[in-house]
């Protein structure tokens, strides 16, 4: 189960953050290799020739790609502590459904908030807040999406919290006003060491996104 673990990483990537949280939760020692996405390393191109994207987990020399697939792999291989997915198959299906919702609805809309302007951005903002409200409805009164404990859905979603300041400034939105329960939940997650140590500072992310936005929008 042990062996060499390497993570091809990128500090602001909310997808790479998911893997870092999972590794921290399980207490797995690993080497993080920061990638320059404008100049991808030969290792990245060798380990993920199809998509050429991070994160990539390299375990004993073999690559696992796609953040949620990596998280499930980690959960299956290091199955002796801190389970990330529920043990009941129906609960697992619900967890997978909501992580898929984060990837398909939250993520796509969030990108529109920072990478577009005008009408397209307005539509993106609306979509993003609606997706957050749907997440809020699913959370209900539970402390975590996983119930009493931090789980797979929490892990999939919390990493976007590090980008909230960027969404708020660039999109001129107030997430706390629109979805207060999401902010309460996020702050609860931030009490966990694995999350607090993994998520970068929101202002640092904002500065990064401001530069990234220039590649997409002429202003």
């Amino acid at each position, binding site marked *: 189960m042990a062996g060499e673990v390497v993570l091809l990483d990128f500090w602001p990537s909310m997808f790479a953050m998911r893997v870092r949280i999972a590794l921290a939760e399980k207490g797995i020692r690993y080497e993080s290799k920061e990638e320059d996405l404008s100049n991808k390393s030969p290792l990245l191109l060798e380990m993920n*020739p199809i998509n050429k994207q991070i994160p990539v987990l390299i375990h004993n020399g073999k690559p*696992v*790609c796609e953040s949620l697939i990596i998280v499930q792999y980690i959960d*299956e*291989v290091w199955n002796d502590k801190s389970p990330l997915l529920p043990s009941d198959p*129906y609960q*697992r299906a619900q967890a997978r459904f909501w992580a898929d919702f984060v990837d398909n609805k939250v993520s796509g809309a969030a990108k529109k908030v920072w990478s577009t302007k005008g009408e397209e951005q307005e539509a993106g903002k609306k979509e993003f807040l609606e997706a957050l409200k749907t997440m809020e409805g699913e959370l209900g009164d539970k402390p975590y999406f996983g119930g009493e404990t931090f789980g797979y859905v929490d892990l999939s979603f919390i990493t976007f919290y590090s980008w909230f300041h960027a969404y708020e400034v660039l999109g001129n939105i107030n997430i706390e006003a629109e979805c207060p329960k999401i902010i309460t939940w996020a702050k609860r997650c931030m009490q966990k060491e694995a999350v607090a140590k993994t998520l970068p500072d929101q202002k640092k992310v904002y500065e990064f996104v401001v530069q990234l936005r220039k590649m997409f929008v002429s202003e």
Partner: protein
Amino acid sequence: MEELKLLGAWPSVYCYRVIWALKLKGVKYEYVEEDLSNKSDHLLQYNPVHKKVPVLVHHGKPVAETSVILEYIEEIWPQNPLLPNDPFEKALARFWTKFEEDKSPAFFAFFRGVGEEQEKATKEAKQLLKIIEDHGLGEKKFFGGNKIGLVDLAFGWLSAWLEVMEEVVGIKLMEANSFPRLEAWNKSFKEDPMIKENLPDRDEMLPYFKSLREKLIASATT
């Protein structure tokens, strides 16, 4: 018998994936055909978030999203496994299932495109087929290895659906001999008795997809 219902809509390939998985595992279920232009209360109740098919309802509890449903089926009915046991091989199977999902817009663009856009989409679709053939299938008989697995089900639309799409669009993506291994896979896939008995009828699909392409082209130009 366990109470099991599948809400589906012909000829959705997503629904067929679930049908194939259940048939391959010998699991009995009740099929309910949904009218997507007039969604039933049941569908809206069971899948309020996406309001889409397929939805699997097991003992009254709904599971939605095709890939989620398939993983659920695999866990509840482990006979005739469709996923490898080894975590690394399992991760690889999940990667290709996700690849199919992520790239389906490119094939959709091929189906509804016209003119220059159509040319670009055709080129991209062929490049994807090459990647799928070289890296996904390789030298194996099936994506799953010696027998059909979840990745074969994910690419199952390359069998009956693609040829209908090609005929409607008037362009062949899989020209003879350009993708020999995918062609061989296609033949093997369709020969499996469970798949053979559960493929939509070509003559029924043609008018359906012809009308769908017309509608898509019309809505793109308005």
